[in-house]
C-alpha cells in the first residue's frame, strides 16, 4: 500500500502533464488558467475525498473546464482580468496554422487527439481517463482525423 500524496504533492506530480493536456485543448495562452480553475474548483468538490483514481479525476477536471471555457463571455472577461493582473508569462511560439487547425476541432476531439498522439493512449485508456465510453472515443477520434485530414489537405 503506497503512501497517499497530499493534494499539493499530487498536483505537482501531474501538473506538467495536465498543463500540456490543457494546452492541447485550449492553447498555450489559456492552459494555465484552465488548469488552475479546474484543479482548485474540482478539489473543492465534496466528491474529491472519495475519488479513487485521482489522476483521472484531474484530467477530467481539466477536460470539463476546457469544454466550458469558451461558453460564456463573463468567463472570458474574468479570465482576461486575471491575466492582466498576473505576472507576464512567456509562452513559446506556436505557428498560427497549428492553432488554426486545432481550433477547428471540438474540445472533445482535441482531447482524444492529444491523448492519442501525445500520450499514446489507446481508446479504452482514453475512455477510462475521461470517463466516457470507448465508442465515444473512437467516434471523436475518427471525426478529428477526418477533420484534420481536410485541413492538412487544404494546406498542401
Amino acid at each position: 500500500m503506497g503512501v497517499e500524496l497530499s493534494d499539493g504533492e499530487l498536483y505537482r506530480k501531474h501538473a506538467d502533464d495536465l498543463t500540456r493536456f490543457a494546452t492541447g485543448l485550449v492553447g498555450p495562452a489559456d492552459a494555465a488558467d484552465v488548469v488552475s480553475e479546474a484543479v482548485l474548483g474540482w478539489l473543492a468538490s465534496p466528491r474529491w475525498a472519495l475519488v479513487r483514481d485521482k489522476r483521472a479525476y484531474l484530467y477530467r477536471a481539466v477536460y470539463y473546464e476546457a469544454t466550458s471555457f469558451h461558453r460564456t463571455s463573463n468567463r472570458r472577461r474574468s479570465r482576461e482580468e486575471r491575466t492582466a493582473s498576473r505576472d507576464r508569462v512567456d509562452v513559446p511560439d506556436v505557428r498560427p496554422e497549428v492553432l488554426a487547425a486545432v481550433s477547428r476541432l471540438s474540445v472533445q476531439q482535441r482531447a482524444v487527439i492529444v491523448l492519442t498522439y501525445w500520450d499514446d493512449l489507446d481508446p479504452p485508456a482514453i475512455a477510462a481517463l475521461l470517463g466516457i465510453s470507448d465508442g465515444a472515443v473512437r467516434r471523436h477520434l475518427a471525426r478529428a482525423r477526418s477533420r484534420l485530414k481536410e485541413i492538412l489537405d487544404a494546406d498542401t
Partner: protein
Amino acid sequence: MPTPDVLDTRIRSLVAELIESAPQAPVLPELDWTDTEHLPAVTRSPRPRRRARFVVAGFAGAVAAVLLVVGLIPVVAQTQHHQAAPTAPALADGQWLYSEQQASLNIQVDSVGNTPTPAAQALVQATIKTWASPFNQVCVSITARPATFASATNRNAWHTLRLFTTPSPNPWTACVSSGGGPTAPPEELLMNASRMPTERSALAQVLSKGTTGIPVLDAPNSELTGYERASLLLIGPTIGNRPAFFAALSHALPLIPGVRALGRMTSHTGTSGIGFATNSPLGRSILIVNPKTGTLLEAQNLYPAFILDLNDGLADQYIPETIAAKGDGTRITVQWIDPLGSPTIVGSHALPGDLTIPPVVTYSASIVALVKPTVTGNQVPDLKLSNASCRGREYSASARSQDQGQATPITTYNGTLANFPATLTYYCHGSPAHAAVLAKALKATGLFSSVVVTYANIPPTTSP
C-alpha cells in the same frame, strides 16, 4: 492526399508542436494548505491601488498614531521555532499581550526645512517589543542598531546633516491609551479577531470592503486596501485569533483583489513559506506565511502608509531635535519584518519599569460634523479642535491629494475645500454633557451640513 500513415505522422507532428508550446504549470500554493476540501474557485480582479493615510490632529492623536503605526510593525506570530499557530485568547484585566519583532528599515530624510536632501538615507535594524492591554493601553520599545549605509554618498549626506549614526535614545519607548468602545477613535492597536469569519470567501470580502468589525481596519478615512488589512491582522497585535482564523486569512489572501499568490518562497532567514504579493509604490509588497498554520513568517516592503508616523518614533532616534525643529521630510519603509516567537500573555510586572503606563480612557461620545461645501479652509481653523473633554480630528474625503505624506488637512487650504466633503470628528471622554455642549457650539457656527452625536450606550442623534 496523405495516406493514413502519413496523416498520423502529420497529426502527431502538429500535436507535438502544440503541446511543446505549453507554458509552465501554474503554481497553486492553495493546495499546500491542509483543508482544501471546500476551496471555492479562485477569482480575483485588478484593482487600483489606494493609499492609506491617517490624519491626526493634536498631540494626543499624534502620539496615538505613532504607536498605532509602531504597533503595526510590532507583531504577533511565529518563527521557525514555532510550528503551531499561536492562539491569543482574550486578555483579562492585568494581562498584556507581549510580542516581539525584528525589522530592517530604510530611513530617508528627503528634506530639511526647504532643502532637499535625497541622498540622506540609512538602513537600520531594530527589535520592536510591544505590550498591549485589553483596554487598549499599548507600550512600545524600539531598540535600534547603528545606522548603516548603502553607499558613501548616503553616508556623507547623513553625516553632513549631523544625523545620528548611533540611535539616541536607545531604546525608544512610549505608551498610549487609546481607549475603546463604540465611540472611541479607530486607533486601537489591539485587534480582536474573535468575530471575524473563518470561511475564506467571506473573510476576503470583509477585508476587501473594510467591514471587519475592527475599527482601526474599517475606518473609512484610512483607505486601507484588503491586502493591507490582512497584513495588519497578520502582523498584529491580534487577540481572539484562533488557528482556524489564521488558516482562513492566508486562504483568503489570493481572493483579495490585487493580490496574487507567488508559491513557495523563502524569508531572508531561510524559512520556507507561501508568498503573496501586491503592487505598491515601493514595487511589490510581499507576505510570506507558514503554509501549515497561516501565520506570518515575514512581511516585505511595507508601503509607507503603514509607517507614516514612525517618523515621530523610530526616526527620533536618528534625527536630532535641531533638525526636527526645521522640519524634516522623513520616510521610513520596512524592508522586512519578522515576528520573533509567538505572542505571549504576561502580567503587568513583566513590563519594563521605566514605562509610564497611561490610565485607561473611556470615551463617552463621538461627534461627526460634515463641513458644508461652501465653507473655505480659512474658516475651519477658527474652530478649536480639541478641548479638555473632546479630542478633535480632521478628515478629508477619500479623493485626497496624492502626496507621499499625510493627507493634507483641510485647514491648510485657502480656498474652497478641495477634498469636500470633509469632516471634523471629535472623540469625547468624561461626561456626555460635554459632547452635547460641543455639538451645539459646532452647529451654531453654521459651517456644517450635519452634526451627528453618538453616545457610547445611546443610539445616535442628529441635529440638522
